[in-house]
């Protein structure tokens, strides 16, 4: 299976990122946000592959023709969250106006030091979790992440807060899931994004807005093997400095019997995909998978 999001070259140059960072941190969020307009117009005009992916997604969610304004809004939401990563890594949390919903089930478990799997997606921004105070609760929190994606950007941002790298578990190594287990055993949180299958990972085909797409099997397998609760999170960008952070207790235990693994995995993954669909409808402009997500229904 092709992994088109991996194949897509990172668009953006080091000098451009560094220049943007300088504007953001010296001249402020307002000045930096003004620059997002020409940047997003550039992407609307020239980033055809990404635009095609966005159009397919929006067409299936909105059920109407997709306009150039829709495209622009998509790039603008993405660019805004990307820019905000800089402020988050620099610790400037006061820039944001956060609404946090249903965090209690998660916080109860954090207080009991019960390891939890935090399952998100590329709908919205996960970096904003930093501003929720979860990270300052002195519990280990690790994020399973593909590091091949956007290496230049990650390096530029990593300079802002070198501890960022400590909180990442790189995927694709034999030890990846062992690391996740050790973090959960210590009562920590392990974050995963459940919408992009990784290289060599078994994928689960699910109906997503009426068409078959491939979803990763890792999150549900991990939850079932380690018997940890799964809490969904969606950090939706709502314009300006506003973010709505939704938590949702997905399952206390994900029970997938070994003898019936394929079927159990299918059912649990479909349940996640249903929730993902619901949040996509809440904030379609937050869909940041800018590639052919359905792989043309292969």
């Amino acid at each position, binding site marked *: 299976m092709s992994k088109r999001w991996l194949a897509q070259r990172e668009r953006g140059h080091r000098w451009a990122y560094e220049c943007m960072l300088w504007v953001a941190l010296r001249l402020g969020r307002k000045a930096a946000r003004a620059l997002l307009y020409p940047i997003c117009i550039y992407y609307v005009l020239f980033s055809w592959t990404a635009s095609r992916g966005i159009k397919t997604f929006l067409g299936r969610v909105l059920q109407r023709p997709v306009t150039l304004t829709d495209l622009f809004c998509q790039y603008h939401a993405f660019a805004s969250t990307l820019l905000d990563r800089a402020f988050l890594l620099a610790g400037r949390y006061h820039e944001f106006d956060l609404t946090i919903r249903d965090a209690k089930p998660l916080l109860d478990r954090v207080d009991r030091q019960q390891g939890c799997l935090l399952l998100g997606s590329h709908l919205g921004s996960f970096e904003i979790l930093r501003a929720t105070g979860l990270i300052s609760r002195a519990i280990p929190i690790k994020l399973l992440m593909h590091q091949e994606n956007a290496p230049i950007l990650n390096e530029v941002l990593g300079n802002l807060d070198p501890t960022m790298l400590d909180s990442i578990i790189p*995927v*694709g*190594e*034999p*030890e*990846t*899931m*062992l*690391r*996740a*287990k*050790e973090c959960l055993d210590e009562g920590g949180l392990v974050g995963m994004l459940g919408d992009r299958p990784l290289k*060599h*990972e*078994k994928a689960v085909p699910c109906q997503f807005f009426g068409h078959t797409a491939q979803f990763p*099997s*890792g999150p549900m*397998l*991990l939850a079932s*093997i*380690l018997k940890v609760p799964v809490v969904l999170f969606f950090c939706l960008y709502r314009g300006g400095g506003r973010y709505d952070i939704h938590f949702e207790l997905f399952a206390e235990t994900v029970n997938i019997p*070994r003898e019936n*693994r394929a079927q159990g995995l299918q059912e649990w993954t479909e349940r996640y995909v249903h929730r993902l669909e619901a949040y996509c409808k809440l904030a379609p402009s937050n869909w940041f998978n800018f590639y052919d997500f359905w792989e043309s229904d292969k």
Partner: protein
Amino acid sequence: MEEWSLSNQAPFETEIAQLLVTTLNLKVEPAKIPPLDPLFGEGLGLDSIDALEIALVIHQNYGYKLRSDDPDNTTIFSSLRSLCEAIQKNRTK
């Protein structure tokens, strides 16, 4: 060639090969897993979820706890033979 590869596994390697096949529900004959072939990526094609399950079952059966920060992990996970050597060196039961 087939006969040769069957006899190529040491008895403990056959035992672990059997354990891998049962635990991971692999569609191969345990005796046909070449002891020097890579377990991950190429070769047997295991992934890190499989590694986690192997680690759990090895801990349960042999009392050896594989750790993610073990500097020898690349070697340990490189083949059936090296995995078996690590188990035999560190087992407590």
